[in-house]
């Protein structure tokens, strides 16, 4: 009974307080601008408890934008390893999902899921801030199950 209650409280707190970390693994900057847009007071994602954190150690959700270049693959892996479990990855933009327009380029490995496990994909070139917020909220609502 108490264990059950504890588990419920923990799940609730995870849904209510996702702290995000933004990482650019080789994007053309379009997705980054939209991501930063979503963090502005206009969209006010602090309503959902989202805070932007600088250090991977504090973050729960890693927002990755752009196709992964060969140079960035090692760094992306390291940033992912530095995060404390439980952790989630959201791939933002067509490039991060599959490679997008950069697919097959000589310096590009492909989508983010080639390097690290991805929990949610948000397509679009670039996706709107609303889509981004919707994606993160949907990802968290799957935690309930």
């Amino acid at each position, binding site marked *: 009974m108490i264990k059950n209650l504890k588990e419920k409280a923990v799940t609730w707190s995870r849904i*209510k*307080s996702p702290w995000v970390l933004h990482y650019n693994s080789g994007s053309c900057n379009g997705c980054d601008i939209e991501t930063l847009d979503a963090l502005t007071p206009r969209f006010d994602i*602090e309503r959902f408890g989202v805070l932007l954190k600088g250090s991977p150690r504090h973050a729960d959700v890693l927002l990755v934008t752009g196709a992964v270049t060969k140079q960035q693959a090692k760094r992306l892996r390291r940033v992912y390893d530095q995060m404390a479990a439980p952790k989630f990855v959201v791939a933002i933009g067509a490039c991060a999902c599959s490679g997008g327009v950069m697919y097959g380029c000589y310096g590009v490995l492909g989508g983010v899921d080639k390097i690290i496990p991805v929990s949610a994909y948000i397509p679009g070139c670039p996706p709107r801030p609303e889509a981004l917020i919707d994606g993160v909220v949907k990802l968290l609502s799957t935690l309930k199950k």
Partner: protein
Amino acid sequence: MEIIKELIIGLFYIIVFPGLLFLVIYGGLSEWLDRKFYAQMQNRQGPPWYQPFADIIKLMSKQVIIPKAADKKMFKILPFIAIAAINTSIFMIPIFSNSALYGFRGDIIAVIYLLSIPTATLFLIGWSSTSPYATIGSMRVLTQLFAYEVPLLIAVLGPCILAGSWSIEDVAVFFTNNPWLMLVNIIGFLVAIVALQGKLERVPFDIPHAETEIVGGVFTEYSGRLYGFMRLALDMEMVVVAALINAVFLGGSFGYSGWIGLLLFVIKTEFVVFLLSVLKAAMARVKINQMVDFCWKWLAPFAILQILICIVARFMING
């Protein structure tokens, strides 16, 4: 039998009221109010009231990563030292009435020094995690400590000189009896509010953990439970300093106790929190040299001016 009874009462003081539990709950609510005020001033809605508690529960349930290069013992112990120091200092500050639990003569100095222990642990945290960002952060913590601590101490001494006592209780009682004399201390009050912004590492003076420059500052390597405790310590520190300002500058509970005392305490401490968040919303971060310049060239002289005013006022009262 007597000993057991005293032990239980002592534990109650430490763990429930006015110790840990009260500080955690009130600290969480104050953090929420602070964030809410801040959000409203940016024309947004802000987080719901349970937000700080959700953050803490989440952090408590996360994995703790301790870097290989870090000093493991220090890394684990330091957050608890900070909490213990803050928890001790609340016993000497009057809360719902004009008497403190363990007040003694000179307790104001003890409280100020107990409150600088968390800052010292912040320095040690950065130092023992050995990451470059954390090390830079801890150097900045120390630099900042030497800038704001002196004006803060001098500003708090003003009311003591006026009241002619070194005990927080006596100062609160003095202002309860002569409420108009609070106006004499207005400069000192403002100086203390600005200096507290440095002590709590909030926006104009949040140089030690400037996200855009040095990632997370001293907290960069902290994760999970340990980071949660550190956040808790900062929240608790905010409550304790607000209570201190309330007792020293704002006349404590005006002689009331019980529910009215509680109401006055909540109103006045949240007023202090409100002032702190107005400062946070109205300003941008300054550089560390500007911060030190400002503290020594403006805050410290104003604090000394306040002391002179207090000495003159003291002579006038005594006739």
